[in-house]
C-alpha cells in the first residue's frame, strides 16, 4: 500500500500512510466475522477430518497414535469398502441416467399440457417433499414378496413372485429404482424451469426453417437450449446418487453385501467408533464426488451454451 506512494510527496506521505492503515484495519474488521465463520464452519471440520484420517483414533479413546496413510491403504484392502464402492457405482450408473432422462421426458410431457400442469408438478414433486425414510417403509410394503401389490401384479401376470429385497443381486437395482423415483420430481421441476426459459421465437423459427417433426425441433432448439439445466441436473443427481444412505439404512441395513459408501462409512464411524478409519473413508468419498463433479462440469461446459 505505502509502496504505491513513493517519496514524490514527502510531506503528505505519513498522513496518507496512517489513513491507509486505518482503512485496512477497518476493512479487515468488516471482513473478519465472515472469514472466521468460513474457517470455523467449513475449513476447520475438513482439517480435523484430515487430521483424524492419519490417526488410529477411536471415539472416546484416551490414547491415539499417528499412523500415516495406513487407513487409506487399509480401505483399499477392506472387502466391505470395496464392495460398497462397487455397489455405489452400480447404484449411480442406474440412478444418474434414469434420473436425468426420465425427468426430462416427464418435463417435456408436463410442459406440453396446459391446464393440468400444476397437478403433474405436485404429483411428481411429492416424493421430494416426503421423507425418504418414511417412504421406504411404503416401498418395503409395496415390494413385499407375499403382501406387496407389486408381486401380486407379477403373480397375476403369471410369473413367479420376486423377492426384491431378499435377492442379493436385486438389492442395489431395487434401491436405485427407489432413488430414481425420489429424484425425478426435483429434476423435472428444474427441467420445466429450463423449458419455460426457452424463447418461443426459437421454436417457431425452427418450424419455418424446416423442423417439421417435434423430434427435429427438440434436437435443434430444445436440447441445446437445455444445456445449462442439464449440466446442473447431472451434477446434482450424481452427488445425490453417491450419497445414497437412507434406503440402505432402512431397507437392507447393508445385509447380503448391499453396503454403499456412505453406509460403510456410517458403520465404521458410528457403530464401530473407528473415527480415524471413518475419516479416511470420508476423505476418499469427498475426493470421488469432487472429481466426478468437476470432471462432469468441465466436460459438459464445452458443449453447453449459456
Amino acid at each position: 500500500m505505502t509502496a504505491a506512494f513513493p517519496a514524490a510527496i514527502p510531506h503528505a506521505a505519513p498522513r496518507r500512510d496512517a489513513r491507509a492503515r486505518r482503512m485496512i484495519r477497518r476493512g479487515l474488521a468488516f471482513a473478519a466475522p465472515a472469514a472466521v465463520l468460513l474457517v470455523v464452519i467449513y475449513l476447520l471440520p475438513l482439517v480435523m477430518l484430515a487430521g483424524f484420517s492419519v490417526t488410529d483414533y477411536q471415539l472416546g479413546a484416551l490414547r491415539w497414535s499417528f499412523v500415516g496413510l495406513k487407513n487409506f491403504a487399509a480401505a483399499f484392502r477392506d472387502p466391505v469398502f470395496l464392495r460398497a464402492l462397487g455397489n455405489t457405482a452400480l447404484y449411480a450408473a442406474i440412478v444418474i441416467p434414469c434420473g436425468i432422462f426420465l425427468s426430462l421426458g416427464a418435463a417435456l410431457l408436463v410442459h406440453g399440457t396446459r391446464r393440468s400442469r400444476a397437478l403433474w408438478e405436485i404429483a411428481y414433486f411429492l416424493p421430494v417433499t416426503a421423507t425418504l425414510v418414511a417412504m421406504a417403509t411404503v416401498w418395503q410394503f409395496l415390494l413385499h414378496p407375499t403382501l406387496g401389490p407389486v408381486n401380486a401384479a407379477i403373480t397375476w401376470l403369471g410369473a413367479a413372485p420376486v423377492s426384491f429385497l431378499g435377492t442379493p443381486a436385486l438389492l442395489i437395482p431395487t434401491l436405485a429404482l427407489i432413488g430414481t423415483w425420489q429424484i425425478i420430481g426435483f429434476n423435472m421441476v428444474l427441467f420445466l424451469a429450463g423449458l419455460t426459459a426457452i424463447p418461443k421465437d426459437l421454436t417457431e423459427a425452427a418450424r419455418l426453417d424446416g423442423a417439421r417433426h417435434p423430434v427435429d425441433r427438440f434436437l435443434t432448439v430444445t436440447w441445446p437450449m437445455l444445456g445449462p439445466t442439464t449440466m446442473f441436473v447431472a451434477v446434482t443427481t450424481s452427488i445425490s446418487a453417491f450419497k445414497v444412505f437412507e434406503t440402505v439404512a432402512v431397507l437392507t441395513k447393508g445385509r447380503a453385501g448391499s453396503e454403499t459408501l456412505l453406509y460403510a462409512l456410517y458403520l465404521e464411524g458410528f457403530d464401530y467408533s473407528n473415527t480415524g478409519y471413518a475419516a479416511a473413508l470420508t476423505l476418499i468419498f469427498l475426493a470421488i464426488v469432487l472429481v466426478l463433479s468437476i470432471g462432469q462440469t468441465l466436460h459438459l461446459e464445452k458443449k453447453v451454451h449459456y
Partner: protein
Amino acid sequence: MAPHSLTLSGIGKGFGSTEVLKGIDLAIRPGEFLSLVGMSGCGKSTLLRIIAGLETADRGQVAIGGTDVTGVDPTDRNLAMVFQSYALYPHMTVRENIATPLRMRELRLAQRLPLIGRLLTPPALRARIAAAVEEAAETLQIATLLDRRPAQLSGGQRQRVALARALVRQPAAFLMDEPLSNLDAKLRAHMRDELAALHRRLGATFVYVTHDQVEAMTMSDRIALMSDGRIEQLGTPDELYRAPVNLTVARFIGAPTINLIPVEADAGGDLSAFGQALMLRAPGPGPATLGLRAEDLRIAAASDAPGFDARVLRSETHGADRFVTCAILAATDLTATLRQPVSAGPAPAAGARVRLGFAAQHAHLFDADGCRKMLRSAAGVAA
C-alpha cells in the same frame, strides 16, 4: 424463383372472448413490399403469424401463389420469417445458423446427426450448402462473422444474420415482424435503406409488420393500415398520406401528427370553426373534423380565409424546416403545428399573434363517424 402472391380471404381470429382479427381480406401482389402497420394490439402481428402458419385462423383462407395453404404446416409453406428478437440459435455459429434452413430441408435426419451425418452427406450437397451460406453472407456483408456465435455480435449484425438465414433458400415470401425495432435510430434508418435495396434486388414478396409509420412510408409499395382487427386503408404510401379514408389513418400517418380542428356544418353545409365561417362547404350538416397537415398551414395575412387566429407557443428548427406550434385562440387546449422552410424568413416570436391560413384543396374533412367527406370551398371548387 418467380415471386409469389399471398391472398388472405375472410381471416378471423379471436383469443378467448377478444376478437383480434375481424375478417381480413388482402391480396398481396407477387414481388410487392407490403407493410402491415398499426398501433400495438391492432392484430398485425397475429395476421403475419397466420400467414406463416404459426397461428391458426378461426375462419378464412390463406393462399400462397394461388394454392390454398390454410391447414398446411409452417414448414411446408416455404416462407421465411425474420423475428423481432431475431430468434438466432444461440448455440450455433453464424455459419450454422444460416445453414440451418438448408440442412433441415435438404438433408435427411440421419445426415443431420453430428459426426456420422458428415459421412452420410454427399460432398456435392455439402459444398452446395456451404456455397449458399457464403453467398447469403456476402449479400449481407457478414462473411467475416461466419464463425462467431450470436452472443458475440451487435444488434445490427444479428439482424443481418437473421436476414441471411431468411434468404439463404428461396422462400415464396419474406415475413418480417418488426425486424428493426431493437436497433438504435441511426442503424434503423440505415437498415431501412438496405432492406429496401434487398427487396429490389431479390424481387421477392415482402410482408413487413411495423408500428412505425416512417418505416412503412419509406419502404413499402403498399401499406395496409390496421386498427382494431380491421384493415382501415390499403394503398400506396402517397395515397394514405394524401387521401386518408378516415381519422384513424389520418392520425397514424405523417409526422408531426395531422392537425385536427373541430368544425360545424350548418343546414346548408357551410362550415364554421369556433363560430367563425370558414368559407368551406361540407356535403351535409352536423359536427365534423377538419384535418390539416403541418406543411399545408401557413402564416397568412390578418383576415385571410379560411384560417384561424392563433398565438405562437414555440418554434423548433429541424435543419431546413421549422415546426411552429401555435395555440388556437378560440379554443382552449387546442394546438396546431405548421411546417415552413427556414428560408421562408425569421421564426415567428413566441407569444406573437398570427393567422394560420390554408388552401381549401389541402384540407381533409371527416364526418362525425371519422369518415372522409368531400370538401368544397364556398366558391364551389372541388377539393
